[in-house]
């Protein structure tokens, strides 16, 4: 391999230029594509003390939901319906009717969830009994820890 001064310098410039480009390009690309590997840190929200909740009867829980929006934390009031048969296992429902997102309620007389908008009826397990909803009530992840009920609220997604 014979190499003269000119070509040696030329290659040296190319190699150094390549190193500098990579040195800046790799961090820059990582930074630019950051949203791709950004994990949304879902926080469990404390929804109350387990001992306070009725058994066998759905109840409504209200809580403050903190959402991260970039460098901001947005607080919003949110709610959910929950039901437990033993005080250990909780089923938590998204508070919006699966038809058009209206807030339904538990009717203590009829022992059913009723939605006022289009007369949808759901059972205590969230199954559709009557009306237009396309699917059963949505469940939210829930767990019990340290005597507290913890839930993960759903993202407010646009219906469409």
């Amino acid at each position, binding site marked *: 391999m014979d190499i003269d001064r000119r070509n040696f310098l030329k290659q040296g410039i190319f190699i150094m230029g390549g190193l500098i480009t990579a040195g800046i390009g790799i961090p820059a690309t990582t*930074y*630019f594509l*950051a949203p791709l590997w950004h994990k949304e840190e879902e926080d469990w929200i404390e929804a109350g003390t387990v001992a306070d909740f009725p058994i066998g009867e759905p109840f409504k829980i209200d809580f403050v939901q903190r959402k991260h929006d970039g*460098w*901001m934390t947005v607080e919003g009031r949110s709610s959910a319906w929950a039901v437990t048969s033993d005080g250990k296992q909780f089923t938590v429902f998204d508070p919006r009717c699966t038809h058009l997102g209206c807030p339904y309620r538990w009717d203590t007389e009829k022992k059913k969830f009723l939605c006022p908008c289009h007369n949808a009826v759901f059972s205590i397990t969230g199954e559709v009994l009557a009306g237009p909803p396309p699917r059963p009530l949505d469940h939210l992840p829930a767990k019990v820890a340290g005597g507290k009920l913890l839930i993960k609220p759903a993202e407010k997604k646009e219906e469409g």
Partner: protein
Amino acid sequence: MISRLINWLDERIEILNIKKTLFDRLIPKGVGWPYVLGSVSLFLFTLQVVTGILLAMNYSPSPEHAHASVAYIMQKIPMGKVVRGLHHWGASFMVVAVTLHLLRTFFYGAYKYPRELTWITGLFIWLLVLGFGFTGYLLPWDQKAYWATMVGTNIASQAPLLGPAIAKVLRGGEALGAVTLTRFYAFHVLLLPALIVLLLAVHLCLVVRLGISAPPEKEKKP
């Protein structure tokens, strides 16, 4: 593959001629390290543009969000520390490099005929670089930034006659606040870049057109 592309371009727009004009220039004897300062400045400028664009993607120029968004870049975004670090240090290096480049040009007498225009555009570029430094310094919106800008605008207000007016225009009002931040951001990312790109284009065209001045020599005794 690449040579075919180059040939394709060369047949149409004589790209090899352009390359020859830009890179295969004749250099006078005795040119050495002091002559790299212009290229160093240009490289640093490119670095500032790239890192600056990236920072602007996650920065919010308002009193409520500026500091928090910078913290977000530093703590939450992968490589955010690196990108901001490059911009931060690149800014200081740029002022140093452009100043040294200016001094080199002066002491080598390279500003003389026929290069007066290169010199004058260069001087204005130097002023713009200082402007970049001054306006960029406020953007993190921490104590240092705030008080440094307070001092800077106060110095401006000490100028006779026009001083108070200049300070008012810089601050966007009597006090240093939200409007100052948005103005400085506009200066830093819109106004100054537009001006410096324009002047740099002229400056570089002139350098290519006129070539590099030879280093000064001792007078030959007859």
